């Protein structure tokens, strides 16, 4: 009887958003993670989880330039060692199956991190995890050898050497410069046997995952069906995986709500698409998980373009945009609190978050434009015979991008700035517009991590020597770089690191290159009963604990 009552109540808890909840006042602030946590005893052994991927990767080495994609990370974290796993509060802890401990054992003269490996940890080819694997990964990702086609060198660049410790199974990583975000390194760890040589690093992981060491192993990578099937690995030395099988399947975003409703997949990340949310949530046995995730939406202004090279014009654009209205439009129908994001590094709910945004002030925008020499003639502003018109480039079919463009256009017209909206195919957005700089304003999402200072460095660092990294605004200052670098190297003093990051953020607002809009909601519709997976927020799932609770 009790079970039935519970079941009858459950749909009320997951009532579809919008519509019925409008009179209830502002929706509550979502938690940092919502994964339906359940102790292992309550999770049934067996079952198949059908998990959609946004695309079907070819390169399964996530550290390779072609493999640095969310789909690759999602899959390989089930089969490769994840040494440190972040919890909901974005604190990374050693995973006991791989590490007995990991800590900074020395700060001076050089930072040393000592890892004590679990002696039971073995690769599927029989070798033990060891110093060779650490050394190979550190060397490949150091950027010293260009034959390794790496996606990023952040963190690994700072490593001076990797050596065996005094006790067996001990690995000492010595940093040339202090590096505060060392917990983000070596997760996942790739085996030296298949990554030590540049050729293996680049080619051994195309269309296959040759060696594993995790709760699951790869049963089949089917390129025709675009599926990856993982099965429970009996050689796993930890607590056995609850699920029999995980089937990953590449599906187009537009097909996801239908596939979920047709019971072909068990979870769907609806992002900010209210229509997808309502369709998926209406399916029988659906449950909605919501978390305030690490990702954030923003507008990047291209400071290399003639009009926007003037910081006053960029500040005018910032002041003329009513971010609250933009956020309200983007999040309409999601039943999500409207909170414009006021920081470039830290999202609300994380320690160190401070709203440093200037206020919405169209009058100030007009004054700034006047001061910059752009005079109002009729409805447009001109200077030296040129009209102030900005090109807003947006990808076709991405929910939210079009309202952002249309509202930006209306708001900027209000202060005399014309906006020319260009819709381009999604696949072309970065390759043909953002990276070459053929835009004035572009909206997209930065994927957040638990380590903002190091992860976002490439987005804000001053472009040097033709290398943009990911600074698509094409502008930075030495002061911002210094603050970011000092924050990243403030190992062992989180308060100081936060203060430095806050300083970098305030400097960024002054340069007015990247306008944060909102912390992107993480809304995941799952099959009811799915436990220990959902809206993960900052946390990373322990794949062996994922499963379905007993009905």
């Amino acid at each position, binding site marked *: 009887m009790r079970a039935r009552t519970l079941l009858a109540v459950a749909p009320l808890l997951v009532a579809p958003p919008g519509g019925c909840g409008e009179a209830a006042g502002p929706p509550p602030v979502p938690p940092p993670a919502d994964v339906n946590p359940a102790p292992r005893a309550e999770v049934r052994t067996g079952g198949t989880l059908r998990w959609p991927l946004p695309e079907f990767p070819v390169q399964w080495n996530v550290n390779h330039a072609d493999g640095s994609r969310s789909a690759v990370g999602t899959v390989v974290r089930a089969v490769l060692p994840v040494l440190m796993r972040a919890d909901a509060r974005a604190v990374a802890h050693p995973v006991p199956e791989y590490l007995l401990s990991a800590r900074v054992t020395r700060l001076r003269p050089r930072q040393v991190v000592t890892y004590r490996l679990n002696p039971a940890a073995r690769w599927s080819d029989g070798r033990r995890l060891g110093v060779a694997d650490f050394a190979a990964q550190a060397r490949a990702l150091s950027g010293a050898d260009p034959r390794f086609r790496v996606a990023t060198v952040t963190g690994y660049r700072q490593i001076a050497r990797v050596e065996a410790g005094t006790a067996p199974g001990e690995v000492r990583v010595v940093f040339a410069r202090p590096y505060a975000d060392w917990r983000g390194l070596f997760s996942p760890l790739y085996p030296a046997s298949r990554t030590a040589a540049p050729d293996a690093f680049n080619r051994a992981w195309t269309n296959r995952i040759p060696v594993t060491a995790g709760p699951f192993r790869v049963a089949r990578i089917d390129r025709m069906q675009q599926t990856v099937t993982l099965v429970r690995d009996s050689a796993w030395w930890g607590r056995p995986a609850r699920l029999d099988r995980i089937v990953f399947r590449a599906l187009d975003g*537009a097909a996801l709500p239908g596939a979920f409703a047709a019971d072909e997949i068990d979870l769907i990340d609806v992002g900010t*698409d*209210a*229509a*997808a949310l*309502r*369709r998926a949530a209406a399916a029988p046995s659906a449950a909605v998980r919501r978390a305030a995730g690490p990702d954030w939406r923003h507008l990047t202004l291209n400071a290399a373009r003639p009009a926007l090279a003037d910081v006053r014009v960029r500040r005018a654009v910032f002041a003329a945009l*009513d971010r609250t*209205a933009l956020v*309200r*439009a*983007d999040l*309409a*129908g999601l039943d999500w609190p409207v909170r414009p994001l006021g920081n470039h590094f830290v999202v609300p709910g994380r320690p160190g978050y401070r709203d440093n945004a200037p206020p919405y002030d169209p009058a100030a925008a007009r004054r700034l434009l006047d001061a910059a020499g752009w005079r109002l003639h009729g409805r447009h502003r001109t200077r030296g015979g040129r009209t102030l018109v900005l090109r807003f480039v947006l990808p*076709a*079919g991405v*929910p*939210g991008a*079009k*309202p952002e*463009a*249309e*509202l930006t*256009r*209306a708001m900027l017209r209000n202060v005399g700035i014309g906006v020319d*909206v*260009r*819709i381009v*195919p999604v696949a072309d957005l970065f390759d043909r517009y953002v990276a070459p700089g053929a835009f004035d304003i572009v909206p997209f999402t930065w994927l957040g991590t638990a380590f903002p200072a190091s992860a976002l460095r490439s987005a804000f660092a001053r472009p040097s020597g033709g290398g943009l990294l990911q600074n698509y605004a094409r502008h930075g200052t030495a002061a911002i770089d210094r603050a970011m670098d000092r924050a990243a190297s403030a190992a062992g003093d989180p308060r100081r690191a936060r203060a430095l990051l806050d300083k970098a953020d305030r400097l960024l607002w002054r340069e007015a290159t990247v306008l944060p809009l909102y912390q992107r909601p993480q809304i995941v519709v799952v099959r009811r009963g799915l436990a220990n997976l959902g809206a993960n927020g900052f946390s990373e799932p322990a794949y062996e604990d994922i499963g379905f609770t007993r009905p």
Partner: protein
Amino acid sequence: MTRRLPGNRRTTAGAVLLTALFLAAFLGPLVAPWDGERIDYAAFRAPPSAAHWLGTTQSGRDVLALTLQGMRTSLLVGLLVAVLSTGFAAAVGMTAGVLGGWADRLLMFGADLLLVLPSFLAVAALAPSLGGGPGLVPLIAAFLWMITARMVRAMTLSLNRRDYVRAARYLGVGPVRVVVRHILPHLASLLIVDAALNVSLAILTESGLAYLGFGAQPPDVSLGTLIADARAAAPVYPWLFAAAAGPLVLIVLAVNLLGDGLRDALDPAIARCS
């Protein structure tokens, strides 16, 4: 005369419907409470209400106003393409038929060349460089004239051999005058019907291109872009989809009724059969 009534009735129905749609598209904005450019910051993706009769989009734009704007784009594109392509077809077909010889071969070779091109793909490839909406008119027209031109040429050839045309020639009337005085009047019915049918073809082509992202660029809208925007949300927010798809169906229906009716009314051979 009585036998032609079915055709006439369809003509009337089509003409009335089309006139009503035209009036709605061009005079509707005078009555509608919002215009398509204005943004209602208090209503993002609101369902139909007294303030917004067909609701609003996610950007707070009034769906009714957008639909009327889209209808204007689509109707204009349809009419312009029809006039252009049929006019061009008539000119090419008659020139080829009257002049004959190398001019005939050259023009028909051009027509055949365009016929074998996959026209939709070609238009889609060229569309981005022309901008959307009205910019597409010459492009769509360029791929609609070939078959009509061949028909016009064939009819011109047969008309050219008629006695009164020959007589006019022998009396020293120039080719231009022969065409205008003696050939064109006989082609009128064919051209009118062809133009009417081209209207709906053009509207559908433009909508298809807009749906794929090659049509009108914001803030301009056409029915195709509205349908594309509403498609993903159609099961959940049906009013967005219906507001765009409904008028498209009605316009194409009206134009086809008109075209069919005119063909029946003007072509005695078909009228007898029906």
